[in-house]
């Protein structure tokens, strides 16, 4: 199996990450030798909606923007969710066929990665008929994917020490009667994104059978074009955990 190239981008605005994903998706479609990419990052506070965005109107948009968050309509699957500091956001961007995956199996493997990660923290997490990973009745990790000609983008958002108050303003993922949680909330101690990151990579590598992952911290890069250049042209130092 091809080797994933993994990049930590630090905190990045959602709209910028979206442009980056679009560029990288195009690159994957055009370049037969493009390596599979794993972007890991955090977002500034933002509410995002998926394809069925007509279910959220201008009133919702202004109400949520007034809280100090961005509001962005996207082309991923799934309904409304929140992204913000303390949440590990992961966008795998790669050709599903290179790993012999269909969308269903791919999402199943993402769920398996998070379930194994929770187990490491001695938390019992599980799947449900609703996509994502749950601890009891509460979602700890949301998922929403877009697939274009077999290239996937968007991904997952795992609550590490996210301020869960932001979720109280919405019906997360449109699912009534269920709640949201975080690793910190479940364990009653502070679990940061930085703490979780290497463990996430380990379990991702296991589940996706990508033997070793090349990792680079790009949080000091300030422009999108810098990020794109580094990610697609591979001009960087190889750093290992």
């Amino acid at each position: 199996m091809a080797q994933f190239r993994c990049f930590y981008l630090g905190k990045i605005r959602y709209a910028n990450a979206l442009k980056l994903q679009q560029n990288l998706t195009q690159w994957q479609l055009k370049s037969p030798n493009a390596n599979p990419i794993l972007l890991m990052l955090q977002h500034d506070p933002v509410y995002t909606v998926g394809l069925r965005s007509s279910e959220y109107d201008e009133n919702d948009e202004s109400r949520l923007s007034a809280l100090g968050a961005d509001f962005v309509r996207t082309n991923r699957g799934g309904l409304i969710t929140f992204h913000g500091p303390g949440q590990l956001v992961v966008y795998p961007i790669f050709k599903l066929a290179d790993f012999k995956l269909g969308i269903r199996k791919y999402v199943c493997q993402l769920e398996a990665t998070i379930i194994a990660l929770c187990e490491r923290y001695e938390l019992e997490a599980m799947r449900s008929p609703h996509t994502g990973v749950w601890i009891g009745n509460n979602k700890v990790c949301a998922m929403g994917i877009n697939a274009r000609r077999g290239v996937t983008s968007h991904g997952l958002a795992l609550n590490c020490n996210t301020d869960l108050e932001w979720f109280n303003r919405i019906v997360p993922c449109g699912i009534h009667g269920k709640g949201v949680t975080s690793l910190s909330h479940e364990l009653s101690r502070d679990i940061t994104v930085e703490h979780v990151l290497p463990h996430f990579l380990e379990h991702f590598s296991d589940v996706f059978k990508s033997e070793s992952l090349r990792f680079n911290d790009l949080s000091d890069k300030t422009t999108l074009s810098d990020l794109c250049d580094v990610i697609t042209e591979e001009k960087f130092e190889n750093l290992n955990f």
Partner: protein
Amino acid sequence: MASARLVNVVASKAFKSIQYSRLGFLSISQSNGSLKSFKPHCRRVHTTHLLSERLFTKDHEWISIENGIATFGITDYAQEKLGEVVFCELPEVGVECDKDDVVAVVESVKAASDIFAPVSGEVTSANEILSTSPGIINTSPEDEAWIAKIKMTNDSDKDGLLNESDYKKLIVSLE
């Protein structure tokens, strides 16, 4: 409870359509009038429009071209990989599209998948049933769940498309 219909071949380009009941039994009448049942070994097959060509894209869409109008949808292989379909964004009728433009999106419980126009032309109709019953994309992807019809502006657009045999080889190579 078992039900089956056998459609007679009437032209060289059409072929038999056999529908299987949920229990998977095919019943045929024998010459002595009794019913014989046997379990088929192959999965459901799709019907096809008489006297039209059925072609495929590498992105797992089927296209049926008749009198310059291309009807298209996603294949059984595609719906199976997507999972349960919950939403379909249809193209607007009257819109001009180029081959390979994103013309529709199919969202399953797992993901939203872009659907590309297989040919250039004007969208003459969109299958409104999919707005209220997107799930028929899972149950009848190559028949009832056609997505839209395009009046082709460029007949040579069909040259790059796959015939059924090449599409089947493609699927096998992906497994």
